[in-house]
């Protein structure tokens, strides 16, 4: 594993994002759309609202905050491999010493950084708004420490999970649009998990939050290795499946063997 190669991939990806209208548009508009509902919810709850009413409203807010790291990254991640293949840039990259795991990790980090930064920024805006603008009953539920911890820990881990799903689909899809649609659909099951947490059907506590976060972290690492394993150079270059399992070092699908004489 070469850190320099991973950093090179990250730098290149970020440079490309910065000049990609679609990516910038998604990054700029989606968070604002996600911000509208929480803002309306926060400021329409009266101070006299009952406990269940407040919890339900805050649950919606928390859910939306956890949807951001699930919804934004697949849009970028799904493009990462199949997009490069479509624009003809993948083959020159694969002729360099970069390993599949390094290439994919770089792409994942590049999608992860802006997604998590935006998710945290939006959450910060919500927290500030609640602190200064919402009724006290709302504020006390939102600033519940285990809830805050869960939000802070799960945001990057969910984003990473969603990114690996996107990249995994991107390594197998034949078309960018199909990859993006599949990646978005494949990320939906995570909503179930976040809903349980947001509506406190799973009561967040500090040990539970840390435990779940560790489980997600392990799942993310496994996903990285699995997705790297799915990366089939021969299939990506020729469109045809490699006949035998390959190794990360290249020779995408096969093994050399002596010609029978």
């Amino acid at each position, binding site marked *: 594993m*070469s850190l*320099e*190669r991973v*950093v*090179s*991939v990250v*730098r*290149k990806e970020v*440079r*490309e994002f*910065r*000049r*990609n*209208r679609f990516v*910038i*548009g998604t990054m*700029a508009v989606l968070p*604002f759309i996600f*911000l*509208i509902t929480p*803002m309306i919810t926060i400021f*329409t709850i009266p101070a006299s609202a009952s406990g269940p009413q407040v919890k339900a409203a805050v649950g919606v807010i928390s859910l939306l905050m956890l949807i951001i790291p699930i919804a934004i990254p697949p849009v970028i991640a799904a493009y990462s491999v199949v997009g490069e293949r479509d*624009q*003809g*840039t*993948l*083959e*020159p990259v*694969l*002729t*360099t*010493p970069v*390993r599949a795991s390094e290439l994919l990790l770089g792409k994942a980090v590049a999608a992860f950084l*802006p997604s998590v930064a935006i998710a945290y920024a939006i959450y910060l*805006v919500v927290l*500030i*708004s609640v602190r*200064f603008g919402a009724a006290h009953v709302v504020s006390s539920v939102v600033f519940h420490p285990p809830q805050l911890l869960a939000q802070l820990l799960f945001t990057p881990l969910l984003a990473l999970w969603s990114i690996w799903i996107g990249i995994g689909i991107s390594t197998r899809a034949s078309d960018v649009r199909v990859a993006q649609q599949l990646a978005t659909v494949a990320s939906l099951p995570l909503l179930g998990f976040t809903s349980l947490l947001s509506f406190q059907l799973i009561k967040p506590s500090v040990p539970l939050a840390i435990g779940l976060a560790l489980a997600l972290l392990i799942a993310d690492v496994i996903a990285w290795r699995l997705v790297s394993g799915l990366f089939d*150079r*021969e299939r990506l*270059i*020729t469109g*045809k499946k*490699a*006949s*035998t399992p*390959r*190794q*990360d*070092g*290249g*020779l*995408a*699908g*096969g*093994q*050399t*063997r*002596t*010609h029978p004489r």
Partner: protein
Amino acid sequence: MRSQRWFQRRRVGFGWRPVDWHGWVVTLLAVAAMIAVLVLKRGSAARIPVMILIVAAYVVVALATGGTRPAKEAPAADEPTDSEAKGSVGVVEQRLALRALTSGRVSTSSPDEPALVVEHLTKRFGERVAVDDVSFSVAAGEVFGFLGPNGAGKTTTVRILATLIAPTSGTAHVAGLLLDPANGVDIRKRIAVMTENPGLYLRLTVAENLEFFAGLYELAQPQARIGQALAAVNLAGRANDPCGSLSKGLRQRVALARALLSDPAILFLDEPTSGLDPVASREVHELIDGLREHGVTVFLTTHRLEEAERLCDHVAILNTSLRTIGRPDELRERLFTKTLVVRTLAPLASPDAVFAVAGVDGWHADHTTGYVLTVSDARTAAPAVTRALVAAGADLLSLAEVQHSLEDVYLELMNDDGEAGS
């Protein structure tokens, strides 16, 4: 759209580059305005519509603005050609840059060891055989031409040797290493491939494209090497141009600079002059000559037979299986009998008697050229035939040896394949 141009000039909207302070300031102002409304209008029913208005205004501004910073248009036909590219530094400086690029290479194998050894290489895609039992070797430091029609398996062979795809059977040694999954990364460190499609990131500048690849090769002093690589392809002045604004020929040269970055032991060039004008093609030829002088092994895939003839020490002609391999002059000798063409003012009275001289194996009359003589050695046969013609009183107009080109060799082999297949 006027508003779009206004926003583009000020770099706001979707065209923002997040590092540009303009974009961040406007975004922060929007967020600050929302927070201010929330705090100052606390308890007021008007705050929600005002908030929605702020968000809507922000989205409208974003949508109204025209995307990324406008890229320069590709040069029109009347703009400077590839060969007149800005920053042209001339052949001498090009050679100096090439010398600087290749000066630090540490040999990874002995000079006598072939750079490339391929034995019985076969690749099948399902039922289709792309490459069939191909064997050849390429000496270190030579320019090796790989010729063949479309679909002959040239690119597949290059991809196998570049570790992109695995052979179905057969072995190869690339730059001294066995072609094996375990050696994939090490092989790719020693080679570079210029694919037929330049494969550049069009949103990035020329320098940014090369920086990315310099990072993948973990090059020391990447900026210096990028400068040298660009100078070697006469593109030093275009480093900060977005690749999307370059013509096809210039993109091809950027791809060539990218392939030179890592100072490879073996350089695979797939149609390097495709799309280049004649002057730019000549520059690439000079560059390949320069690479040969500096000990780089060049594996050249091309359709241009005159290019192969001019540049290559050895050529192989492939049509799924290897049809022939050798030096261009060897191939000509192997495939064609040596012939002399004699033209006289009037037909000879007894050509059998005239051409019965040492070195002439046979002859036939050709109404357009005169007489075509099959000879074993043109240098001994030609003077003897001249003397015989003079002795016979013939009015000799011309006597010449027929020169066969590599194209003749190629077409002859392809015709054979066509006849065999029909």
